[in-house]
């Protein structure tokens, strides 16, 4: 499997490109092999195990752990998603400043800007989520391993959620600094809760949509086109929930119905993704 990926290495004359391209080419293939290895270790361990439930759980946890480690390793080596997403978010705030011609925003307008920016930045990560697997044999490596397809779903959604948290670590302070008219400290605990619930929804829907779009001819276009309507309920919940938090003087608390909307939507889409993801891996 590593033979075709080797040919993708950048020419040695390019000092900036070489380490990155090399890591990128080796990353998914090597890590997929590592995942296969981990699963094989899991299989050996399984045979000594008596309980069927415990067996499935260790295999699953080992597979998810290996896959998640591979995702994060590839991201740390190639820096393909998170820096781009963060930079995009900060640039979008600047664009919003000029487009709205305002020094500061509060309330619903602030919530809208924050969530539109986060959503569009998330699209960049969603678009790249499975590209390396489709182009460099990551899917084949995964299919050769004797593990459940759900492991890939959990690992990818987990990786995307971690990217989103990393994005927000940059984007939310930048937003507070550049555009927000009120202080964030008081609203922080509730805002963190909203961010976490929304991230979960974006990660689940993003993973499903990315897996659907990645093996089509127009994947860069289809991913966002499918994801945006599916994420409208998340935006409704998140933007309405964070509007009172970004109000001057923190006028209101988050309405219970927005928590319920976000949590329920996450839950239902977790079930849908769990039920459908296997069918995207079948070949």
């Amino acid at each position, binding site marked *: 499997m590593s033979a075709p990926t080797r040919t993708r290495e950048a020419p040695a004359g390019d000092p900036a490109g070489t380490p990155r391209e090399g890591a990128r080419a080796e990353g998914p293939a090597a890590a997929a092999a590592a995942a296969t290895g981990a699963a094989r270790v899991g299989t050996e361990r399984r045979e000594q195990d008596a309980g069927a439930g415990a067996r499935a759980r260790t295999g699953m946890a080992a597979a998810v752990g290996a896959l998640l480690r591979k995702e994060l390793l590839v991201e740390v080596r190639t820096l393909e998603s998170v820096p781009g997403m963060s930079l995009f978010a900060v640039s979008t705030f600047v664009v919003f400043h000029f487009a709205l011609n305002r020094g500061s925003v509060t309330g619903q307008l602030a919530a809208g800007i924050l969530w539109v920016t986060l959503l569009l930045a998330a699209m960049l990560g969603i678009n790249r989520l499975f590209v390396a697997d489709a182009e460099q044999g990551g899917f084949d490596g995964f299919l050769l391993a004797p593990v459940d397809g759900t492991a890939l779903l959990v690992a990818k959604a987990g990786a995307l959620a971690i990217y989103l948290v990393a994005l927000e670590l940059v984007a939310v302070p930048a937003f507070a600094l550049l555009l927000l008219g009120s202080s964030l400290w008081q609203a922080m605990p509730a805002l963190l809760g909203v961010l976490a619930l929304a991230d979960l929804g974006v990660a689940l829907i993003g993973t499903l949509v990315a897996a659907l779009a990645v093996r089509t001819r127009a994947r860069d276009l*289809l991913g966002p086109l499918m994801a945006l309507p599916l994420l409208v309920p998340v935006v409704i919940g998140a933007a309405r929930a964070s509007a009172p938090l970004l109000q001057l003087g923190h006028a209101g608390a988050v309405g219970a119905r927005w928590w319920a909307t976000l949590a329920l939507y996450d839950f239902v889409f977790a079930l*849908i993704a769990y039920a459908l993801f296997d069918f995207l891996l079948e070949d």
Partner: protein
Amino acid sequence: MYGRGLRALSISTVLALGAALSLVFFYAPLEADQGFLQKIFYVHVPLAIVALCGFVAGGVLAIQHLRTHDPRWDARSYVAIHMSLIFAVGTLITGSIWAKGSWGHWWVWSEPTLVSFLIVFLLYATYQPLRFAIEDPERQARYASVFAIAAGAFVPMNFIAVRLSTAYLHPRVLGDTSNLPGPMALTFLVSLGAFALLYLTLCRYELTAKHARSQLRRLRARVLEGQA
């Protein structure tokens, strides 16, 4: 096999549509508030209901496809969604006309049903681009089914979420049949039945045409093989 019963179905659709339209124009009383404009309700609401049911049905048929791996279920799911998309365009246009007539704007964000409908329409508008961007027919059918199921489950959830987001609701002139006076309710039900029949007939026609086309292709391939 596909063409059987098509003539009877077509004739009954034409009769039902004729009956529905005559009821709309000659039997149903003029609404006191909106007058003649309200009659678009007998077209708009049945179109919307049939389109939404068709979207959900497309998801159910797609479940059948993933369970059996039978391409015929995929064809049915595709046709259901395709026809629903056409009905959805009709819904959005008639809804827009109704909104302009009764509220003075072509588009109102305060009407949650219309807004949800737009979101659902935008999602399903990507069904065909997704489908035809995949070359392998087996994978195309499988991915399209996954999309159809996720989107079918999205339809009711989206309606709930958008409804929640609308702080104030328009007083719904004619929300459901329970608050309709008798003649209007009868007209509405006949109209709903007629549009449902129209949907079924068009679906059957498209399925028959697809089937005939694939049969023709197979026969042509066999003839060419014989010549060679």
